[in-house]
């Protein structure tokens, strides 16, 4: 007897193929995910041994000296991210609102292409641009130039988030405000932006988490420094540059400090990116 599914032999072959495929797929997927987990595990295992209070409160020391810390890199990264945010969050809100308000304007269509374009630019090229725009005219490496490079990476992330959030504000809210005689400008400031605030904050924090680990654009802008720098017109150390320098150094104790800094940086990026997504989802 032949069923519409074919013979029993054919059926069992199909079932066997299905089982085999699932087995291989699950094996590969779980195997690789486990392997990738070991990378994180390795950073934690190496990094945790050097992290203590003085790790956060001391400056880097020469190889072999005790009480080496990463204070200047932490402060430098904070300085760079704050400066970059001061540039890209206001500009990003301005551009994002504009693009959400007039989605069909021809200028906006070209601006969309521009934002897509900025997002595809490899991050090292922002370093070259900031070098030509800021470092060459100023005559030296500086925190400002690094912040300019980072702000260009952050800008499209903020714009996209703001645009998305503003579009999601119900038209009825806007119309209600306009019907009450409120001017379009005040409607945007008092109704649209507050309604979109969650999205704007999420985008900004995601942008910060993205740039806080960026290394390449800082190589020839913020450059790095062994000292505690407070001026924004001086070369400044940052977490990623410190990790790069210490990772490629031949000294075992410097490499160990690099692992400690890596762990701190991963935690920082992770808490920002996953934390914001988790908090603002509700």
């Amino acid at each position, binding site marked *: 007897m032949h069923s519409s*599914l074919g013979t029993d032999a054919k059926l069992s072959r*199909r079932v066997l193929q299905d089982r085999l*495929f*699932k087995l291989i*797929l*699950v094996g*590969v*997927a*779980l195997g*690789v*995910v486990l392997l*990738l987990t070991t*990378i*994180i595990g390795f*950073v934690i295992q190496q990094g945790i041994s050097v992290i203590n209070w003085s790790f956060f409160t001391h400056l880097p020391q020469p190889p072999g000296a005790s009480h080496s810390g990463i204070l200047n890199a932490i402060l430098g990264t904070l300085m760079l991210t704050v400066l970059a945010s001061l540039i890209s969050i206001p500009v990003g809100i*301005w*551009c994002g609102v*504009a693009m959400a308000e*007039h989605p069909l*304007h021809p*200028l906006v269509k070209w601006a969309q292409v*521009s*934002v897509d374009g*900025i*997002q*595809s*630019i*490899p*991050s*090292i*090229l922002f370093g*070259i*641009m900031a070098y*030509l725009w800021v470092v060459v005219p100023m005559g030296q490496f500086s925190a400002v130039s690094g912040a300019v490079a980072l702000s*260009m990476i952050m800008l499209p992330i903020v*714009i996209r988030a703001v645009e998305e959030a503003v579009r999601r504000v119900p038209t009825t809210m806007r119309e209600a405000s306009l019907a009450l005689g409120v*001017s*379009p*400008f005040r409607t945007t400031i008092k109704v649209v932006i507050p309604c979109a605030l969650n999205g704007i904050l999420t985008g900004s924090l995601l942008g910060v988490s993205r740039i*806080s*680990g*960026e*290394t*390449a654009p800082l*190589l020839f802008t913020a*450059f790095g420094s062994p000292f505690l720098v407070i001026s924004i017109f001086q070369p400044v150390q940052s977490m*990623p540059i410190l*990790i*790069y320098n210490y*990772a*490629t150094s031949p000294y075992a104790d410097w490499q160990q400090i*690099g*692992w400690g800094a890596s762990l701190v*940086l*991963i935690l920082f*990026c*992770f808490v*920002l*990116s*996953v934390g914001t997504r988790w908090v603002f989802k509700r």
Partner: protein
Amino acid sequence: MTDRWFKIGLLVAPAFLITLVGGMAFTLMWGASSSFQQAGWGFYTQLTWDPVHHVYGGGVFILGSVVTTLLALCLAIPVALAIGLFTGYYFTTGPIAVMSQWVLDLLASVPSVIFGFWGLMVMVPAVRNIEMWLGVAPYGVGLFSGSVVLATMMIPLTASLIRESVATVSAELKEGALALGATPLEVVRHIVWPISLPGIGSAIMLGFGRAIGETMAVTMVVGNANHLPTHLFDPTNTIASLIASEFGETSDPVVVAHLIHLGLILLALSLAAGMLGRYIIRKQS
């Protein structure tokens, strides 16, 4: 009055963005102009980069970037597909899926310099052992190491994009096929695969665009040798690594112009991949 300014301001914003991109393009073109004039088209075929003898060719780095990235893609795609199907079709809910997604999100947020550090300290010694076993020069760093680190970094991103695309396949179609007696494998092959193919294609293109511009992790493990790789384990160099290691070191305006010229080529490759990826998505929707 404020409303008038507000309206103008809203139109100035897109104009500003267009000008910004134009300014970026102009800056790079202007910075590379002397390289265009001096090297011309020969820059693409010249395979020697020798600043001491003033011979500058970009061929090695262009090929190095493309080969490293393609090799990384070959390593990453099968794995990303497996993970994408695993979390997007077979295990969409449950603790294993949630844990896997959590790990992928975590890895996607890890800065590339840390992948490079891991590559240098864990993977390079392992590759060196493989090389000794195979009987090739045991540098550890090289084309293979660079590609493996790149693939490792690409997997979380491409797998997440593939999962999104696989998960959008409508439940009715899948359940309909299952109800007609298809095995899950046949559902994957005849329904999930054709429907999500554009999404998978665009995920791969976006992964390529991201990977070719990736700098730090590759710089640390690719070997920074300015010649074409003759075999899989040979040290070589990529455009991004060359810029990272030479741009800050040189004060010679000729070298700077050539490096910016290479940067423009990198930009063109990355833009082409990004545009193709977005085009595929747009065509689908």
